[in-house]
């Protein structure tokens, strides 16, 4: 009886070993947040905000998004 139980437990343990196996694929790299700025050509960075300042970056994008609102250029409002 004891031997059967031990055999069963051993089989179960061996069967479950694979469940804890980590996938062999490459790991995702961590990304740097956009508000940290670009390491590329500095001239391409829009003026009006300071890289690294998240609130300034948020404000810059909000301001820039208003460039898509042509009603800012007219008096027509609802």
């Amino acid at each position, binding site marked *: 009886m004891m031997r059967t139980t031990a055999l069963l437990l051993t089989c179960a343990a061996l069967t479950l070993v694979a469940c804890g196996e980590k996938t062999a694929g*490459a790991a995702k790299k961590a*990304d*740097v947040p*956009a508000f940290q700025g*670009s390491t*590329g050509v500095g001239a391409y960075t829009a003026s009006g905000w300071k890289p690294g300042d998240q609130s300034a970056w948020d404000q810059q994008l909000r301001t820039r*998004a208003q460039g*898509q609102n042509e009603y800012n250029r007219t008096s027509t409002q609802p």
Partner: protein
Amino acid sequence: MARMKFICDAERCIECNGCVTACKAEHDVPWGVNRRRVVTLNDGLPGERSVSVACMHCSDAPCMAVCPVDCFYRTDEGVVLHDKDVCIGCGYCSYACPFGAPQFPSNGTFGLRGKMDKCTFCAGGPEANGSPAEFEKYGRNRLSEGKLPACAEMCSTKALLGGDGDVVADIFRNRVLVRGKGSEVWGWGTAYGKPATGGPQQPKPEGKKS
């Protein structure tokens, strides 16, 4: 915290494909890959409508759910990106995506595909922001330069809007109220939300069926 979204105004899109061209030029997208495209319904018939489609950067992205190697990630701004060094080009994401956003650069024998490519909301990838390696794999990283996606900023009729979802929704709401139609397309509350400035929500205009 901004939550980036695209919205395309079908009342304004004139199917010029300027957004497609801007995207391809900005990111040096190879032949055969279209990160963005314009879909036209009822082409040539009265009531024809066009809409510019790309990755919608879903809040609950099905591509992320089905990827067997877990190469996708979401930035703090809600942009869905992926790591091409992890992607195995299996194509599951393209089957899962309702917008046909995932694209593959080559079609060879035995269904050979390259690494998946898709709209990045001009936010690049996991390589250093603005680096040559990032440009090679994902294209320009305009967000890290304080800019919005090239497709939206280049849209001649401003049909395609991109940026913080609240700001974009406010622009769209204002537009729909001024012209008095368009809210019936997606449903007022669902698509346009409430004014971010805290003002009273505008009543639904008596829209004519377009």
